Structures are given as structure tokens and as C-alpha cells.
């Protein structure tokens, strides 16, 4: 019987430590500049690739680290503590795209697509959302019709992360592929390569913040990909995408935890600078108690995402835990960022102060990969049976 054990393995600790160091030494010093210019940090991404970060949870035969999803999420948390745009890059390329191909792909597809993603040479994008299909992901309009040996795709996808990167290779999309006799629409998942004819990279969105993360619209105008770019079961496209989103939700929770931790770091720095002595700090309650609340929430966020990842690693059902984690970690991170921003007052408002970035970006994660409402819906359904 497996006992309860809150310790990380030696390997998990090692990976976390490497990522923490990398984030503190390489990412954090560049974060302000990345946000200000919106220039994609290709050199940092390349360093992450050479550290094997994009491949942590995948087998060595595909160029991965042979590790587990607990390690991957510890990594995502630590990277996000440096900057969330890189944590988000990992969430999409590893937890969603590489994961989906690894889980569902034919051996040929894995050889062709998985290996470069795992090695971080190429970056993947996940195409689910459309202008009229947000929370209602099934309301998608993109179609893919089989013409001979090719799929001909028409439609568009919105808010797609990573696709604007130079070394983005593919976007895995959901599309309606056929209509059954009874009128039922079948949705499938297809791999679309960025260099496919008829594929257009649309506008880069002007966002409140999060500028170093590439977010674009994409368009398919009689976009053609080979027949064997179909991924998995033709009838189960939506279910397949939803299934891999479960891992994605753990990853978003890890991103938000990293962000919350960074905010806690800032709160502690503030307290040290503001109070002359330990005694004067402890005589006050407002700020010390606020910090206590924050630290409690950060730890809880971490515990729940780790549990979800741990269950996944053991092949157990992690539906509830993944959604608990996403819901809790993202909402608390938003609150924490807002509270610490408040603490800093006017000086925190300046772009040069990291807390201003954390504040602007924290809100986003309550929305991406399923809003809080969607998380609650899934949890409620799961509980009701």
C-alpha cells in the first residue's frame, strides 16, 4: 500500500532547484525588459530547451527526461516565479501539445512532431478557442473536409498562445470534420503545421500586459494538411482536447502559484524595508497577518496542484484535483497580487516595480483554459455524479 508522503524525490528536488536557479539568475533580471518591449526571449527559450525543460515528463526514447508530471509542474512553478510568460509557454507546448501527441499520436506522428517539441527546438500551440466558442468550446465553426489525401480547413482560432513565435511549428485544432446521417456534427483534432498552405498568422493582440507571451489569431482559408495529420479518434476530437486540458489546468495552477510566490517574495521585501526592527514588525498586525494569509494560500495552491500531478503520475483519476487546483490557485493569485500591489502604494504603480507586472497579469489566469465558472461547473458535475 502506498503511504502518504509529502517529500519530493531526490530527482524532483533536483529539477526544482535547477529551475529555481535558472529563473532567479536568467529570467527574473530580464522580465521587466521582456514585458516592456514585447520581444520574445528566444535565447532564454533556447536555454530552457538545452536544460531539457520542455521534455521533463516524456520518455528518453523521444528525447525527454524520463521524469514525471510532478517534476514538470514544479518546473513550471519555478519558471513562472521568474516570469509567467515563460511558464505559459511551457504549459501550452508541453502540458497541452506535446502531451496530446504523446497520448494520442501514432508512432509516425510522435517521431515527426513530438521529438522536436520535447527537445524544445519547436514550440507547439493549442487551437480550441474561436470568436464564438469560448466557454462553449463545442460551438466551434472551423471545418475540415477530407478531399482525397488532404484535409481542407476553413475557419479561425482566437487567443492562441505561442503560435507567433518564429520556431512555433504546429497548432493542434478542433474542427468539424463530418456530419452524420442524423445531422450530428463530428468534431476531430487535427495537427496543422504553421507552414501549411492557406494558414495565416493573424494579428498579435494588444493585451493589458503579458506582452512577452505571443498571443495571436489564426486563420484557415482552404488550408491544406495531409490526411494523416488527424490526431487520435476522428469522433473524439473535443473529448481529446478536453482531456489534455486537464493537465493544462494543473499547469495553469502551477503558473499562478509561481506568480503568487513572487508576490509573497515582494511582500516580504516590503516588510523588511518598511519596518526598522523585527519587533516593530511584529507589533503591527495588519501587514504581518496579510503576509501570513498570503503564505497560507501559496502553500495550499502548491499542495493541490502537486496532488493533482501526483495522481496523474499514478494513472489515477485527477479530474477533481486538477480543477480544484486551477480554480483555487488562479483566484488566490489574483487576490494576492492585488493585495501586495496595494501594500506598495504609489511606488508599486511604476512599471519598474515588479509588483505592477504581477498585478496586471494575475487576472488573466482566472480566465484562460476555462474560466473559474467552467472549473466550478466541472467540479459540481463530478461531485454530483
Amino acid at each position, binding site marked *: 500500500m502506498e503511504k502518504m508522503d509529502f517529500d519530493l524525490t531526490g530527482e524532483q528536488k533536483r529539477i526544482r532547484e535547477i529551475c529555481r536557479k535558472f529563473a532567479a539568475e536568467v529570467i527574473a533580471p530580464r522580465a521587466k525588459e521582456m514585458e516592456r518591449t514585447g520581444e520574445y526571449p528566444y535565447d532564454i527559450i533556447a536555454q530552457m530547451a538545452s536544460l531539457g525543460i520542455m521534455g521533463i515528463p516524456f520518455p528518453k526514447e523521444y528525447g525527454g527526461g524520463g521524469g514525471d508530471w510532478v517534476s514538470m509542474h514544479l518546473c513550471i512553478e519555478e519558471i513562472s516565479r521568474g516570469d509567467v510568460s515563460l511558464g505559459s509557454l511551457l504549459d501550452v507546448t508541453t502540458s497541452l501539445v506535446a502531451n496530446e501527441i504523446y497520448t494520442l499520436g501514432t508512432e509516425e506522428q510522435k517521431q515527426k512532431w513530438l521529438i522536436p517539441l520535447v527537445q524544445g527546438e519547436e514550440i507547439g500551440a493549442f487551437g480550441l*478557442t474561436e470568436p464564438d466558442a469560448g466557454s462553449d468550446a463545442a*460551438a466551434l465553426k472551423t471545418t475540415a473536409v477530407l478531399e482525397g489525401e488532404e484535409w481542407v480547413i476553413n475557419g479561425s482560432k482566437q*487567443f492562441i498562445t505561442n503560435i507567433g513565435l518564429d520556431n512555433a511549428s504546429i497548432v493542434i485544432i478542433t474542427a468539424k470534420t463530418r456530419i452524420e446521417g442524423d445531422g450530428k456534427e463530428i468534431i476531430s483534432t487535427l495537427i496543422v503545421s504553421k507552414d501549411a498552405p492557406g494558414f495565416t498568422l493573424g494579428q498579435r493582440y*494588444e*493585451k493589458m500586459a503579458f506582452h512577452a507571451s505571443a498571443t495571436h489569431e489564426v486563420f484557415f482559408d482552404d488550408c491544406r494538411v495531409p490526411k494523416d495529420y488527424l490526431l487520435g479518434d476522428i469522433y473524439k476530437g473535443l473529448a481529446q482536447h478536453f482531456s489534455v486540458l486537464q493537465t493544462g489546468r494543473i499547469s495553469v495552477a502551477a503558473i499562478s502559484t509561481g506568480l503568487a510566490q513572487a508576490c509573497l517574495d515582494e511582500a516580504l521585501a516590503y516588510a523588511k524595508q518598511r519596518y526598522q526592527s523585527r519587533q516593530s514588525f511584529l507589533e503591527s498586525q495588519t501587514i504581518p497577518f496579510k503576509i501570513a494569509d498570503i503564505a497560507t494560500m501559496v502553500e495550499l495552491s502548491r499542495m493541490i496542484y502537486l496532488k493533482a500531478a501526483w495522481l496523474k503520475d499514478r494513472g489515477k483519476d485527477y479530474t477533481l484535483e486538477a480543477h480544484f487546483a486551477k480554480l483555487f490557485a488562479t483566484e488566490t493569485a489574483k487576490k494576492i497580487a492585488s493585495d501586495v500591489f496595494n501594500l506598495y502604494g*504609489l511606488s508599486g504603480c511604476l*512599471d519598474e516595480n515588479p509588483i505592477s507586472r504581477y498585478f496586471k497579469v494575475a487576472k488573466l489566469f482566472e*480566465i484562460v483554459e476555462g*474560466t473559474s465558472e467552467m472549473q*466550478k461547473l466541472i467540479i459540481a458535475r463530478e461531485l454530483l455524479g
Partner: protein
Amino acid sequence: MDFDLNEEQIDIQKAAREFAQGEFDPDQALDLERNAQFPLSIWKKACKLGFIGLHFPKKYGGQDLGLLENVLVIEEFCRRHSGVGMALGLSDFGSEMILRFGNDDQKRKHLPQIVIGESTSSLAYIEKDQTNEFFFKTIATRDDHGYVINGNKLFVVNGTLSGPMVVLCQLNGSGPEEQVALIVEKNSQGPIVSLTGSRVGMRMVPMVSITFNDLWVSQKNLIGDEGCGQFQFTNFLNEMRIEAAAMGVGIAQGAFDLALTYSKQRMQFCKKIASFEAIRNRLADMATQIEMAKLLTYKAAWDFDRNTGNVLFTYMAKMASAETAFEVADDALHIFGGYGYIVENQIEHFYRDARMVNIFGELGRTQKNLIADKVIGKI
């Protein structure tokens, strides 16, 4: 007890609303925000129609109205657009020091230009590493005919000296309670002004750092008497808190408007999202919060205009309104979903500006501390 606005107040509110709806162009606002620019042309139009400084006496160009009327205007402006509204609402920042405590000469000299849109005004009080808002390192040294000012001020709203600036100083050689408020004239040469860096919110409000190196000001520019600085500043802060509360109410209302409109248009799962309980619950909470903050704010302004000396509602209004502004803007952005994060849809602007209401003007003791002092009293 009467919760109605009087006819004049209703007219002013209506006029401000119509002006804002007509003149605050969303595309122009987007550009101003991107470039962190003051909405000059809109401000000038607002001045021409008498919206700025309407609480000044008629003999100085105003309309003899009260803080409550000023609150109504600020609220409507911020409702239509948080950024433009805050910039306009703060265009007369600091003038209240002259208005409430200056002599007739000073008022004649400095106030009319603010009303007609020739100058914005400013108050310099924040300093580096300052945790007590009444402790200044900027020093004013007496000489035969005036004072020599030395020191640095930060985050000075409208501090480019394109209008009169009130500077709060410690009187040299006196105890810490001996403070003076001095008017530094428009276009004074000598002070070194540098623009404060790019920031999260209130981006259309000009903010600078300013250094005074032996700047001389005339005795005539002393507001009130020596040693009155702290008293004047305390009162100024209370008036400003109510104005800030008005901004919070307006921003919350504006965010609500945007979210409500969107929720009635956006369809998911074959229904307008305004049909879903989850959204309806949020909107109900938002509307209630806005109303509570509004009532407190109007009460505080009403108390101020009646000189009751009751400042408890001032603190409560500021605190409630600041929190409401952020919570409502947050809910509103959430209702927009992914679109809420995109600049073009405006709501993210309200989100950022809303968070500034609490921070703005606060140093040291927070509203909560002040409320606690008042409700608990001496122990």
C-alpha cells in the same frame, strides 16, 4: 431625511453625463492611454462649459456650488471613461488648499486660470521613504520677504509648473508640527522637473518628481499662517478623499455599464450570457456594492458641505469606494472573458485605474486606521 438630489444637482449630473458621452471618444481615449497623455482638448471643453472648479465661488470664476456637485461631475466623467475622468477630476488638484485657506489676493491670482482651462494646479507633498504624511524633509527657510525652499517631492500630480503648485514644507528651525503651505508660481524657473516613469494606471494624469534648490517664494505666497500647514493639509486630504471616492464610484459604475452591455450581447451555449445565474449573481453583487459606495460618498460630501466636521464618513467612503471600484471592475473584466484582457475593449483600463483609487493619496495611516481611531476613540 431626503435621498433625492435637488433639481440643480440633477441638472448638473445630466449635463456632465451628456458631456462625457458626447466628448469622451473611446478611440481617442485608447490613444491617449497608450501614450500616457493628458486629455487636453477634452479638458479645455470641460472648462469652457464650467465643469472644472464649479465649487469655487463665482468671484473666482466658479459657480458657488458644493463638493457634492463636484462629486456628481467627477462620478459621471469617471463613469464614461476612468482614465479621462480621473485626469479631468484631478486637473484642479491642490487648488482646494488655496480655495479653503488662502486669502482673497491668492484666490484671485490663482483660481480663475484653473476654471477657464488655462492652467492645471498641483500640490506637492509626497517624499521619498515617507511613511508619515505629516513629516516633511522639504524645508522652507524664512528670509526678509519670503521663504527659500529646498527639497524633493515625488509623484506630484500636474507638477509641470504649467499652473500654480502648493508645496508643503517643514519650517526651518521649528518643531515637526510647524509646517507651511507655500504657493510656487506657475512657470517658476529654477525647480528641476522630471516626468515620473510609466505606470499601471492613472496614466493620463501627469506626474513628476520635482527638486527645489534654493527656490525663493514671496511672503505673499504663504497660505494662512506659519504652522497651519498640517491643519490645512489634513482638511485638504479629507476633501480629496471624497473626490477620490467619487472617482471610485464612477469607475465602478462605468465598469458595470460595460459588463452589462456585453453580457446582453454575448452568446454562449445558445443563450445570452446575461441569462446565466453565475453572471446574474455577479451583476447583482456589483450593483449593490456600487449603490452602497455611492450612498456613503454622497453622505460624506453632504457632511462636508454642511461643515459638520464629521469626517468618519469621509474615511468610510474612501475605503468602501476604493474596494468597490476594484471588485466591480474585476467582476466586469471577468464577464468579458478573454476579450476583457484585450486593450481595445476598454474594460482592462477600468481595471487598472480602479486599483489606483485606494493607493492615490494614501500614506502611512490607512483609511481603516483612521476609521478605527474614530469609532473606538480613547481607550
